[in-house]
């Protein structure tokens, strides 16, 4: 397996605050890499560096072997698409017009999308299953549908890598599943690679349970405290160190021979010290 994205010894600081210190990982083709870590650990900063939006002070980020520091926004956008955590809705563009914006990196400054771009946008809408919404103003959609539009827009970029920043934040129970299922389908069908920041450890297990090559990076205090497959890294002990939360990994065997693993949180660690008597 060749590595698509390589992050080597990246450091980033805001004035007076070191956010990332010599962080490194790599992401292979057809793989999902999940970034886990408490609020403020630098997940979004790391993603911003990878998106070329922030410049790391030290270290190197390369895509397919090319340093992204030498890439224009246009070249970068053909390699990597972005699904934001929360998209601030402004003008009521139609859903299809939104998805068409994913074609920007293929169009000259004076060009508008062509019929071919239109076809690619329609296909992207079909892949995430929202073709029926294409003429609706996207400001009228629900949060979940809106996030699917963002995923479709990223797909219209036809890039091998999609970066997602907490794509299921603010979504209801069902739509969280819809987004996760969409990601799984896309990775299986198109060989897409996904880099995803999330707050929910079970997302990593969900991908692994579905048979997708998944790795997870635990980011805490400017460093990765562990990188590996969810079943190796997402242990009771590591979750305790990462979040200060006491949690149990529960697994059961499914009929098809696969194992289903889930994290069940029990209590925060300070609290459990105070209440030693709680049964567990």
């Amino acid at each position, binding site marked *: 397996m060749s590595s698509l994205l390589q992050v080597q010894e990246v450091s980033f600081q805001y004035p007076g605050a070191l956010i990332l210190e010599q962080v490194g990982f790599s992401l292979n083709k057809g793989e999902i890499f999940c970034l886990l870590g408490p609020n403020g650990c630098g997940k979004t900063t790391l993603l911003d560096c990878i*998106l070329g939006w922030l410049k790391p002070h030290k270290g190197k980020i390369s895509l397919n072997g090319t340093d992204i520091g030498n890439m*224009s*926004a246009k070249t970068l956008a053909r390699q990597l698409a972005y699904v934001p955590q929360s998209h*601030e809705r402004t*003008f*009521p563009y*139609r859903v299809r017009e939104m998805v068409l914006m994913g074609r*920007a990196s293929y*169009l000259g400054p004076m060009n*508008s999308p062509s019929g071919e771009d239109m076809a690619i946008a329609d296909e992207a809408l079909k892949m995430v299953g929202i073709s029926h919404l294409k003429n609706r103003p996207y400001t009228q959609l629900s949060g979940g549908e809106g996030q699917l539009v963002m995923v479709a827009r990223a797909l219209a970029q036809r890039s091998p890598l999609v970066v997602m920043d907490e794509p299921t934040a603010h979504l209801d129970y069902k739509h969280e599943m819809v987004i996760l299922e969409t990601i799984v389908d896309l990775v299986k069908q198109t060989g897409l690679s996904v880099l995803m920041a999330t707050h929910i450890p079970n997302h990593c297990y969900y991908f692994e349970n579905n048979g997708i090559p998944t790795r997870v990076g635990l980011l805490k205090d400017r460093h990765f405290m562990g990188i590996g497959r969810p079943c190796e890294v997402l242990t009771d002990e590591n979750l305790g160190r990462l979040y200060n939360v006491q949690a149990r990994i529960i697994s059961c065997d499914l009929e098809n021979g696969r194992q289903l693993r889930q994290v069940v949180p029990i209590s925060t660690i300070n609290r459990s010290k105070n209440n030693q008597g709680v049964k567990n």
Partner: protein
Amino acid sequence: MNDTKKTRQLILFILVPLLIMFASLFLGRYPVDLGTVIEILWCKITFQPCTAAEISQTLVWDIRLPRVILGALVGGCLAISGAAFQGLFRNPLVSSGILGVSSGAGFGAALAIILFNYLPTTYIFAFVFGVLAVVFSYLIGRIYSSTPTIMLVLGGVIVSSVFSALISMLKYMADPLNELPAIVFWLMGSLASARFQDIWTAGVPMLIGTLGLLAVRWRINVLSMGDREAHTLGINTVVNKGFIIACATLATAGAVCVSGIIGWVGLIIPHIGRMLVGNDNRVLIPVSFSLGASFLIMVDDLGRLLTGSEIPLGILTALLGAPFFVYLLKKTKGGGW
């Protein structure tokens, strides 16, 4: 939207302003009939000797026609820049003057009236100070290395208020019999002094700006996603924003320097466009030009017909635009807002 409907719309948005322009040639205290107007236009365009009365020729060709053309250009430019800025700043409440071009131009004009009291210098000063004001706003916005939208808006607010204060100072210092009324009238906006030479000079920046905005109009959609998303969609935000600001500034400064300050067009016409054709800037930008041109010529017609003396344009655009806007709001239910 299917193709025939699109074509029909396109023809409509080109024809309507042209028809309004043509109709406006008849309007005025001195009546000129259809045949005479066509004859005058024809022989002037083909450089043939004209048989129509001398006064009709002067009225139609030298006074009404340049005024109508200039009105169309000014209205179109204010509206198109307003639409572009609304997209760029991701804010539907922004107008063409957001970066201080109007107050800068107002100051330049007032300064020229006091120093020279000679019309061509007023145009030049208004244009130069209008552009300067935007340059200042942009430099303030660049205090951070990139140009975050909020900093640009803040820069515009700062620069506008400084120039407004300077305008007040000039008014205070001006000779109250001649200069002060001239400044006040200029600030209220008018097309009364329009001549062909104004079109040749102010028309150049207006056309360049308009063509620039028309060329990159789809990119305004992408930029309206915000800087970070526009960047990840593959657009160099600093270069593209700079280009759009430059084009919109040329167009607005060109318009303001010959017409004075005409509010409301750059804010409300793009919204009327949004209600009629939607928010896709591919369509909205040209439609805004067409609507702005039509609106300003009609308002100017009313301004010169309603009373014996002319009513300044800045007053009428608001008085007529507001009820029309409310009517459209009610009719289209706001168009998805």
